[in-house]
């Protein structure tokens, strides 16, 4: 399953990179792109099947699945608007779906961190330094390019509002990454490090792609080929998150198998 995930993700990314048509705006690469957010939704649902849909363990994963589902919904709506209806998809319901996804991802990480009382932990000073620097750089870039410059744009008020909201959503992504790093340190000696490490890395790539987009948005929208490869970073962001959810399911399967072996009912 894990290998399959990476294969699908990598193939999708390679197909995107080498798309014969040259323009990622055409229907085929855009359709391939839809597979990417589908992966964490699928693996998240499979993870919830074994964790149970209710309960403390399921809560953060449920939130992440909803978040990734909203990304998928946004991509599907975007695809329909652009290729089915031939209407400029910005701003549209697709943006609403994308923007609704960020709080769910944030809530997924926060609820896990709250569960572990991460805020009460004493972190090493070097880690505080790294977190503060990374956080300030990312937030600085997002605030300047994503909020300030966009608020000055000549677009309609609705487009400007949507653009600025994306900037605010990126601040949420930055915070998720910082929480993810703390949680990775928290779980460093257990199998959960793989789960939250991959999930945080996935969100990290989404943030990197978002920042890269902010810095190159004109060239991206003009369809410059190598700049459009930012999409590949987005694709891998989804693949890494899916991998984290696969790791979670594997860990629970392993423990459940061990408990089943000693359970009186299985004898």
């Amino acid at each position, binding site marked *: 399953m894990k290998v399959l995930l990476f294969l699908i993700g990598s193939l999708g990314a390679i197909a995107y990179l080498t798309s014969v048509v040259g323009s990622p705006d055409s229907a085929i690469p855009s359709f391939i792109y839809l597979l990417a957010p589908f992966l964490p939704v699928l693996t998240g649902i499979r993870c919830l099947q*074994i*964790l*149970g849909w*209710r*309960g*403390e*363990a*399921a809560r953060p994963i449920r939130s992440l699945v909803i978040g990734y589902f909203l990304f998928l919904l946004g991509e599907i709506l975007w695809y329909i608007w652009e290729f089915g209806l031939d209407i400029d998809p910005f701003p549209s319901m697709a943006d609403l779906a994308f923007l609704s996804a960020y709080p769910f991802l944030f809530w997924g990480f926060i609820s896990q961190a709250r*569960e572990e009382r991460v805020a009460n932990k004493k972190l090493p000073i070097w880690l505080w330094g790294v977190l503060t620097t990374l956080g300030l750089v990312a937030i600085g870039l997002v605030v300047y390019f994503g909020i300030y410059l966009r608020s000055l744009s000549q677009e309609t008020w609705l487009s400007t509002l949507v653009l600025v909201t994306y900037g605010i959503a990126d601040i949420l992504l930055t915070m998720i990454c910082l929480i993810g790093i703390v949680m990775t340190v*928290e*779980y*460093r*000696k*257990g*199998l*959960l490090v793989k789960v939250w490490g991959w999930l945080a890395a996935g969100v990290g790539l989404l943030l990197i792609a978002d920042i890269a987009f902010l810095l190159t948005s004109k060239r991206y929208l003009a369809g410059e080929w190598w700049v459009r490869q930012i999409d590949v970073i987005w694709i891998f962001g989804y693949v890494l998150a899916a991998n984290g959810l696969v790791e979670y399911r594997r*860990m*629970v399967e*392993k*423990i*459940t198998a*061990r*408990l*089943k072996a*000693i*359970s*009186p*009912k299985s004898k």
Partner: protein
Amino acid sequence: MPPSEKIANAAANEIKRYFGEYAGKLYLEHYLKQQPHLVFVSLEELLTEAIGPEKAASIVSEVKKQTNEQGKKV
């Protein structure tokens, strides 16, 4: 509820927190009637796998403290 069952229930709740409802149920089925020290050993062993030894040990001691206090109140 006898103290040993309280301990098994508290331990099963910790298992549910990390491995989900079904794993917690399986754990409880097996450890409900077991000696408390066996419950604690198994809990620490399973949690160590998920979250590492230090964190697992701190959760186990938290469960011990909790169940001990509950026992005293009863």
